């Protein structure tokens, strides 16, 4: 891979503040361009259209018809929404070769991580354990 090419990273996550945090972190790296998608539908669409070099995927998304409490309270969450996206991306001709790194707060190694890796995730990172800078370092290593 050419060292000078700007690598496109697609972040699929429902959390606006989380996306902003990563946008800030990637803003300091001129060799990466971060694009983001806030829903599973948007994520699938962008993956096909933009053809990123890497996808960062969350696993937990709000339930489509769920209740959302203001102020960041308890939301109706679908803890398996991300797996559906992962399966789709790995099955789709246009996106199956893009490496996918799961970036989530589900921390069960035996269930969540195992399932994600079995479904084709290249890596599994727990958000609360690594700051954006460290995640970017991991991405650097992956591209080497």
């Amino acid at each position, binding site marked *: 891979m050419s060292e000078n090419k700007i690598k496109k990273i697609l972040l699929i996550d429902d*959390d606006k*503040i*989380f996306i*902003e*945090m990563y946008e*800030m*972190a990637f*803003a*300091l790296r001129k060799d990466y361009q971060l694009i983001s998608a806030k829903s599973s539908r948007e994520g699938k669409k962008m993956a096909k259209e933009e053809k990123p070099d890497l996808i960062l995927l969350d696993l*937990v998304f709000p339930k489509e018809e769920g209740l959302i*409490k203001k*102020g*960041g*309270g*308890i*939301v109706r*969450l679908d*803890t398996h929404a991300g797996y559906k996206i992962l399966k789709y991306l790995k099955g789709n001709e246009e996106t199956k070769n893009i490496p996918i790194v799961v970036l*989530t*707060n*589900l*921390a*069960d190694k035996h269930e969540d991580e195992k399932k994600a890796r079995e479904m084709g995730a290249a890596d599994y990172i*727990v*958000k*609360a354990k690594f*700051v*954006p*800078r460290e995640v970017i370092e991991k991405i650097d290593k992956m591209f080497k």
Partner: protein
Amino acid sequence: MKKSKNKKTAIGEEKYLNKNCWLVQSLNHAPYSRCQHCELKFRNCQFLHYQVISLILATLFIALSFFIKGKSSELVIIAVFTLVIVYGYFFNKSTDKIIRANFTQRQANEKLEELTANLQQEVDKQVSEIKKLLKTKKELLDMKLDFLQIVSHQLRTPVAIFYGLLDNWKTGEIKDYSKEEQEKIMKNTIAGANRLKNTINDMLDALERGMEFEFKPVDISSILDEISEMLKPNYDQKGLYLEIEKTKEKLPKIQASERFIKDALMNLLDNAEKYTDKGGVKVNLEKEKNNIMIKIADTGMGLMKDEGEKIFQTQFFRSSRAIDRVPDGSGLGLYIAKQIIEKHNGKIEAKSQGLHKGTTFTIVLPIWQK
């Protein structure tokens, strides 16, 4: 057709009751009897057979007697007649017995079928109850796991945010950002912290509403002994004493949910150890009217004038000295302990002579009233 005989053999058995019996049809009216067991009307065919056949035979023999000459002919007729009657009687009786036996058997079979059906129904009912319970248990377990999964996720998410953002200050990268960007980062850091606070509040609310208290008589001194055993190693390690004063007379039991009271008291004794550097903690119990009073006195860092109430009031209140001493305490322990004690219709308060002069927590809990 004697009615009295009908009563004795009053049974309805198809084998012996032929509705198409030519005798019955030809006679065109048949004696009806009521079965004393099943109330079915039936026609006494065998009677007709017996009665009619006897008549026919008698007629035949009378006719025959005209052909037999001599005295012996009358004797023969009488003998045959007697035989016919006797035979008929015994035939009747034996069929009667068979019919009765069959009926009894059929009745027994019917009863058995009924019992079996009932038993089967009962068993099915029990099995479906058990299946329902197992399903509920599984559902509850799944719900619990889902809940835990979501709770841990919800607590980690805001932490990831403000921890991730604070990293910028840690590495010094914050200076690489423009002023607007720095403001945005600061705003988001605070938003993350707020979100965590709100999440915890919501969860506590949900938990408090959902706390099921089952009150039973509980022996407070044995609970304190258990807690003391668990915490003693921590006390010993710091060189602190932990004394639980025994009263001379046995104290009455309190009205409590053992699990929750234990949590509350454990929290208090754990706190006492954390905020005490030298000396130790003394616990004494006494009966006061309808309550038991528990005093937990430590020789630790004490409270300032206004802190006695504040430490219970808000969920996250931690004095700066407390934060210095125990940097990662959540500030929830005393709040929860107070909730628990108040749910037990008790009271808790904290008093201190001042900084470094130790603190005494006084808890009052009602005695178990039968």
